[in-house]
Structure formats: structure tokens, C-alpha cells
């Protein structure tokens, strides 16, 4: 080449008339997908083969056991007048080739027969099962406005949500909570009304009432310690009283889980704010509390509750076992929740705090109006994770003798008719937990996706 290049224009005009062509056959379509995803390298090929082998050895036996060979409906197949595990027996060949009667598939009859106990514990002994079912349905109605956005009649549902706890306690235990607390509760509902229904009549007097309500509440609670109410209550006594030791199964799990979740969030917020406070005493106390609770296993706290709590109070103060467990579970969950929320508070840029201050908002107002809404939105996945963890941890009350669904299943297994139905019982309990926890985690992912559009960094 010579200096010809010096003056030659580099012009090339191709005009762009090349139509798109299909990709080479080995890179697209089923073949392409297989090559890319399953067989792209030697290692991948080996892994694919190993996985297929694994699936071959695990999936068909499980499907056979759980579905194909299983007994689903209760029927007295062996004709001995009662329904038990023996009704699931079929003819199988044992190790020596002899034909014997043994259980081959899953005996879901166990679940069909014992579902009352598994779901409600011994509740049916003293009360109709309609009550916990109504409480369960009510729970979903109460939670709906928080879970979903476009729910009609949102404000009415929120009112229902506020009333729900008292309603649930009445349905489940058949009694109220004593006239003092009921009056406190009633006052709470009345003072919230003007916020929920901004256009209702009588707004003025209600708002005034809302201002003095906190003082009234404190007075009433203090009075309850000194003047015994002696069973006086506002709720109608039309339901039979069901003692908490009869609550069991899924009912108990839900009670502990829901109470734990509902109470641990506000307490966790308070602890998180306290931990970030500039007042050394408050900060130190919160830190000690949180680190202590997070450092010990829940079991030890439950032991502490069941063994030591009676010692902390004067004679005669008898604590319901369930209440003890609830106190511990709430404290435990609140500590973890506090750490999650603290992460959210730390993620809020300092400018937000400063802006709130500059507007002249007091500490609590700025928290409530500006900081906390943002912080909680950021850590929703963490909060839901906390909830899932709490829900799973309810199984631990087994160790202090409360009959949650796992313990109830274990108890049902001791019945002579159903001995050996271990796999069915645990599979059922696992399924229940899986459904709840998986639904919660999917919900959190959905919620995160929905809120991210407003919060993209």
C-alpha cells in the first residue's frame, strides 16, 4: 500500500438493506435452549444428568405414596366398627416375598378423622366450632384493607379491624376482658371514629373526647389494679366460656402468631426509636433489652416464662400458660422487629429528619408523619421475614406444653388407632406451615414490587 490512502475517501454506503435472518438452528428453539441451559459445558451436562437421576429416584415414589396409593376418605375398610390406621392396609409383599397386610400409601384418613382436633384442639369440648371459624374469617376481613389497595368500603373495614380484637377474644374465650379494659377499648374506638369518617356528624365533640381519651385510659387502667371488677363485663354472656387450655391446633398457632405479629410491630417501633434516641439512658436500656433477647434462644425465654414468671409476682397471681407464652413471643419478636426497623430508619437520608425539624414538627409528629412511613416501606421484606420467622417459632411452645398444631399432631399420634401415621401427620403440619409462610413471602415480594415504583433510588 502506498500513499494512495491519503486522498481516498473512506466513504462506504451500505444503505442498511440487510433483513433479519433467523438464528442458526443450534442456538435457538428447543435444541438451542437445551444446549444453552442444560448442556452448555461438560460440568453442566454432568449436573443435568445427576439432577435427572435424583428426580427419578425421589419424585415417583413420593407421588405414589402421597397420591396414587393413598386413602383419602374415611371408610371402615376392615369392618371392625371403628376407623383407624388398619383401614388403610392393603396387600403387599414383604422382604421375603410373602403376602402380608401393611400400609403402603399415605393414610390421609388420619387427617380426615382428626381434622377437628388438628385445627382447633380441644375447643369442641366446650364450644361450637363455628366460633373459631368466624374468628378466622373475621381476621381476613380485618386484614384485607391493609393487604390490598382497592378494597371497597375501606374505612368501614378499618373500623371493623379496630373492633376485631375484642370480637375475637369474645368469640374464642366466650368472655370479655373485664369492664375496665372494655371501657378503655370502647373509648379507643370512639376517639378513632372522627379520623376514619371525616364527614360524620358530631365530629367536634368526638375530637374533643379524643384529646382527653389518653388520660381517661390511664385512669381506668390504674383503677383496675385497685378496685376489682369481679367479672363485670360489657359483652353479652351468651357464649359458653372456653378455657385457654382447651385451645389447640391451628387455632392456637394462629392466636400466638397473630397476637405476636400485631403487638410486636408497635413495640418494635418504640424500641427502634429508643435505640436511636439521643438520650443515653433510654438508648442503653433499649440496647441491653434488644441484645439480650436476640442473644438467647426462644426456648430459654419460654422456660423463663414458664418457670420463673410465677416467681416474679406476688402469691396468688396466676398467669395463664398461654398468656405467659404470648408475653414472651411478643417480646422476642419485638426485639427482632426493632433491629429490622432500625435498618429502615438508618436508610432514611438525614435530610428528611432535618426537613421535618425545619417544618417545626415535634419529635413524635415527625416520626409519625414523615420518617416512619418511609422507613417501614423500605423494610417491608424484613418485616414480613420477621413475621414468617415468628409464625414458624410458634412450634416451640410445644416444649412448654402448649398444644399448637405440631404438638396436637404428635398427641393425635399417641392414639392407639393411629399409631404409625407419623409421615401423614408431619406432612399435613408441614403443608399447613408451608402454605402460610409461602403465601406471606410471595405477598411481600408482590408488595415490594408495587412499592418500588415509588421508591426507586
Amino acid at each position: 500500500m502506498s500513499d494512495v490512502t491519503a486522498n481516498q475517501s473512506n466513504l462506504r454506503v451500505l444503505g442498511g438493506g440487510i433483513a433479519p435472518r433467523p438464528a442458526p438452528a443450534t442456538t435457538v428453539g428447543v435444541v438451542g435452549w437445551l444446549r444453552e441451559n442444560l448442556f452448555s459445558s461438560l460440568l453442566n451436562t454432568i449436573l443435568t444428568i445427576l439432577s435427572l437421576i435424583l428426580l427419578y429416584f425421589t419424585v415417583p415414589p413420593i407421588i405414589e405414596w402421597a397420591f396414587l396409593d393413598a386413602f383419602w376418605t374415611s371408610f371402615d375398610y376392615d369392618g371392625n366398627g371403628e376407623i383407624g390406621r388398619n383401614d388403610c392396609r392393603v396387600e403387599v409383599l414383604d422382604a421375603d416375598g410373602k403376602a402380608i397386610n401393611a400400609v403402603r400409601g399415605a393414610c390421609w384418613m388420619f387427617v380426615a378423622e382428626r381434622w377437628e382436633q388438628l385445627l382447633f384442639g380441644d375447643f369442641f369440648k366446650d364450644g361450637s366450632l363455628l366460633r373459631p371459624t368466624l374468628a378466622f374469617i373475621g381476621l381476613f376481613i380485618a386484614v384485607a384493607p391493609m393487604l390490598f389497595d382497592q378494597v371497597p368500603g375501606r374505612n368501614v373495614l378499618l373500623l371493623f379491624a379496630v373492633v376485631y380484637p375484642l370480637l375475637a377474644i369474645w368469640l374464642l374465650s366466650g368472655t370479655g376482658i373485664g369492664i375496665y379494659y372494655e371501657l378503655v377499648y370502647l373509648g379507643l374506638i370512639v376517639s378513632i371514629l372522627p379520623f376514619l369518617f371525616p364527614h360524620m356528624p358530631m365530629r367536634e365533640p368526638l375530637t374533643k373526647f379524643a384529646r382527653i381519651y389518653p388520660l381517661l385510659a390511664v385512669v381506668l387502667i390504674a383503677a383496675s389494679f385497685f378496685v376489682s371488677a369481679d367479672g363485670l363485663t360489657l359483652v353479652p354472656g351468651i357464649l359458653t366460656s372456653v378455657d385457654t387450655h382447651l385451645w389447640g391446633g391451628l387455632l392456637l398457632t394462629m392466636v400466638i402468631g397473630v397476637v405476636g405479629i400485631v403487638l410486636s410491630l408497635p413495640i418494635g417501633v418504640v424500641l427502634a426509636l429508643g435505640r436511636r434516641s439521643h438520650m443515653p439512658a433510654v438508648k442503653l436500656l433499649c440496647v441491653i433489652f434488644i441484645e439480650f433477647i436476640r442473644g438467647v434462644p426462644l426456648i430459654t425465654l419460654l422456660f423463663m416464662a414458664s418457670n420463673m414468671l410465677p416467681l416474679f409476682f406476688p402469691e396468688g397471681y396466676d398467669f395463664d400458660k398461654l398468656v405467659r407464652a404470648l408475653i414472651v413471643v411478643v417480646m422476642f419478636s419485638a426485639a427482632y422487629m426493632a433491629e429490622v426497623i432500625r435498618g429502615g430508619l438508618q436508610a432514611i437520608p438525614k435530610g428528611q429528619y432535618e426537613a421535618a425539624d425545619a417544618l417545626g414538627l415535634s419529635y413524635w409528629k415527625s416520626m409519625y408523619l414523615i420518617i416512619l412511613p418511609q422507613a417501614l416501606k423500605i423494610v417491608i421484606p424484613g418485616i414480613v421475614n420477621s413475621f414468617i420467622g415468628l409464625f414458624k417459632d410458634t412450634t416451640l411452645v410445644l416444649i412448654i406444653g402448649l398444644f399448637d398444631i405440631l404438638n396436637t399432631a404428635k398427641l393425635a399420634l399417641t392414639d392407639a388407632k393411629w399409631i404409625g401415621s407419623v409421615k401423614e401427620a408431619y406432612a399435613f403440619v408441614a403443608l399447613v406451615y408451608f402454605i402460610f409462610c409461602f403465601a406471606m413471602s410471595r405477598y411481600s415480594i408482590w408488595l415490594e414490587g408495587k412499592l418500588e415504583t415509588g421508591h426507586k433510588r
Partner: protein
Amino acid sequence: MTHFADYIPYVACLLAIVTFNNRAQQAGNPLPSSLTFAISGGAAFLIGAWIGNWIIYWYFLGIQPANILPHPDTVFSTPDWKWVPICDPVRVSSLAKTLLVTPGCLLGIACAMFAWNRQYGLENRFIRPPPDYSKFGVVAAGHGGFEGSLINNPKVRSVVTQIVVIGSVALLFYFIVANTAHNLDRLGIASGFKFLCDPARYDVTGGFMPVSSTETHWAAFTAGLLNTFVVAVFGCIAATILGVIIGVLRLSNNWIVSKLAAVYVETLRNIPVLLQILFWYGIFILLPAPRQSLKIFDTFYLNNRGFLGPKLFVGDAPVLSAEQQATMISEMGDVKYQRLVEEAGGEENVAAALAESVRPVFGDGSSVLFISLIVAFFAVWFYRRWARKRQEATGQQSPVFLVSAGTIILFPILCLLIAGTTLELQHTELKGFNFVGGTSISVSFVALWFALSVYTAAFIAEIVRAGILAVPYGQTEASYALGLRPGQAMRLNILPQALRVIVPPLTSQYLNLTKNSSLAQVVGFLEIVGTIGGITLNQTGQAVECIVITMAVYLIISLVISVFMNWYNKRIALVER
């Protein structure tokens, strides 16, 4: 006779001193390093031993403190291989001394480091002083700013609030303590920690250190502690390995593999751990009876009593004196003695058989193993320093990994062979209905370990996946564009960045695993909560003390891990404006 646990505090001291000394050198320590070693090491050891002794003996048990400075003879020669109860200060076992000395040592070192830090000013964020590029004729620009100072609110309101808060908490405490004291009195329950030295009256079996019912509650407690330790350590190791594998598999572009990994993670994370423990326990006790055990390579056996295998003895069997033999025989009772004579094949073999029955895993002469291991570690450490210096100077790379691994594995073996230490492999054999000899791991432990590892691995897989995804793909591209090979890119760029995101939640998962091990009692495995938090509590009725001890153990573990995590976070924090 040496006991392997004797080396723990010394090794821990040395390693900590070496690391600390390294940092001090970088900060411009004016003293020669050998002097620093000597001073800080000696001081830490003395302080540690003294503090440990003082605290445990005198304060809790009201017993006169034993020998403050552990005499070499008593430390290195114990007549008894068990965790002799510290209630008898004369027969203090070396292992008990380990418990006292190690925390004391670490405390001493911490104090020394703190004082050093104050004087030489290693900054809070562990930032090394900027390297000196003035040889290039360049003046370094200023540092990025650190955070501003805390602004304290001096208003009266905050003071009043704090007084109110402290006051109410104090009142609450007073209320609780007064009631507790009154109730304990009323119910006639003793208080204080003296019960630790009373006989336990229950056996601790199925764990890693059998304790008979004649030994004290303290011995049972230490057996439970060891069990917790073993479950936690081996559980963490297994969970990490499994979790990393599954996390990486989940990221693979092999569709089947990543979906399988996802199914694994989602299923196991949504089922309570207690249920999983019970499930695996139910599976493992369905294994065949010992007579029909599953054989693996004809040396390992799996049956419904547990997992059995051979036992490796390093060092010789102990030589028992006549009185020791006599004591043992009288404790055994006639029936067992006759059986022993039968198995030994005559009365003349009884002495050897008795010695065999109490033979420790690391007996006489096993110190060679540990000394050679320590020497190997130091050799590898020095080699790596030399290799790094060589690379900086000449650019040549050395096969560091291979040499390190080879040295640590081969050098101790070589030393053992040269020293002629006895290495005996005792196989487990089926005699009658059961297996004797060898190592046996109870089925409860196997089920617990398996369940905890598999459960925690699901969480670790998610953490690993999040960590690797957190590193932007651009980092990999930039590394490749510079010519780094995938292995180098992973090691030098991706992993360091991923580890920043992985390590904090990983350590909290380790903590969770340790805390979940407290569920062992549902499968009958006695660890801390089972021994001192369970049986001891029920027997002595001293709920407060037992629960306090249990919680204290877990709190110490949590605190140590938290401190480590804070240190690690500060050290590796990415420096930003």
C-alpha cells in the same frame, strides 16, 4: 500425659498476639517486635489466668482459689482424662483450666490492644495510613472526611424523661427481685450456685462425653456445653458447604439445577425447624437394627442407634496405678467386672483392658501432633509472607495454596512417623446385639446435625446468592477486559466484594444455628438446655440460677460473634466520601 485442650489457650494467645503485633508494626510501633511479643503475651497470660481463677473459683463457688499460676506439672499431667469437677480444687483438671484461662487471656489481650490503640492511635475505622507516593514527586491529597460528631440534646426535657424511664425500670426490677426472693423463701428453694458441686444423679449419654450419675452437675453442664459446641461447629461447617453449593447452583444457567435449588430453598425455609428435626429423627430411627446395619466400606455402620465408625488413637494407653485399678473395679460392680474379664480373656489382661477403657483419644506422646501442627501453621504463615514479598519484588508467583495445604497435611504426619507415636485404629465390632469399640455417634445427634445443617443451608444459599448478585456484572467484565482469568477475577475482585455482603448475615445464621441447637431435647440429645436448663433445673428446683447460666452461655456466644462482626464490618467497609 498431655491433653490436647491444654494447647488451646496458648495457641489462641499466640495467634492473637501475632495478629495484633502485625497491626502495631504497621501503625509505627517503635519497640522491636520480639519485645512486643514477649510483653503482651506474658501479660495477657498472667492476667488471664489470674482473672479466670479469681472469678470462677472465689466468686461463684466460695472456694479458695487454687494455684494461681498453673504449674506445668499439673497442667500437663492429669491423672484423669475426664472433666474433673472443679468443685475439688486439688484435682483441677487441665480442661477446667482451659475454660478459665482462655477467656482470661483474650480479655488480657483485649485490654492490651485497647491501651495500645489509645497510645498509637489505630483509627476507629482501621484505615491504614496512606502509602507514601512521595518518591514519585507527588503530594497526597487530603483524606475524605469522617462523620460529624454526635450532637447531644441538653434540654431539660430529655433529662427528665431519662430519670422517669430509669426510675420506672428500677422500680420494676425492685418489684421483681423482692417478689422472687420472697417466693423462693416461701417455697423453700435454695439459692446460690453451690448445687453445681452436688452429684447429678442422672447420666449424660448419647453425647460426646459420657457423664455418670455420680458426677456433679457441673460435669453434666460441661458435657452439655461440649455437645452444644460440637453440634454448632459441625452444623455450621456442613451448612456452609451445602449452602454455598446450593447458592451457586441456584445461579447457574442450567435450568433444571437452578429450579431444583430454588425448590430446596423455598421448601425448607417455610417449614419450622422443630418439625424438620422431628422429621429427620423419625426417618433415622426407621433405619435397621444394629444387627442389620447398613455398611459403608465395611468400616462405617449406620443403624437406628446411630452412626458408628473406627476410632483413631494417637499416643499410648495410660498406665494405671494399682489403686486406680482397684477404684475402678469397685465402682464397676461385679457383673461388669466379670464381663470385662471374659472379654479380656483372663484376669492377667484386666489391667490392660481397664487402661483401654479409659484411654483418651490423644494420649501419651500425642503432643507431637499438636506441636508439629503449630509449627506447620507458623511455617505456612511465614511462607505466605515470603511469597507475597517475592511477588511484590519480582512479580513471580508461587504455588502458595498447594504448598500450604501440603505442609499442613504432610508435616504433622511426617513428625508422627519420625517420633514413632502409636497410631491405633480401633474398629467397631458387632458383639451380640450391639457394637463395641470405635466411635459411636448417637442417632439423636445425627438427626439433629442433619436437620440443622439442611435447614440453615437453605438460608445460607439465599445469602450467598444475594451476595454474588450484589456485585455488578460490570466488575466481572472489567476484570475480563483487563485480561484476568475467571479464577483470578473471582478471587481478586468478585469474592472480596461479595463477601462484604455475605459475611454479616452469614454470621447471624451461624448464631441462629447455635440457638436452634437448643431444640435438641425433643430428640433426646442432651446439650446445655437439656442438662442444666432441663434435668438439673427440675431436680434442684433452682430455676433462676439454672436459667441464668443457660442464658449467660448463649449471651457470651452471641456477644463474641457480634464483636467479631462489628470488627469485620468496620475493617472492610468500602471507603466513600
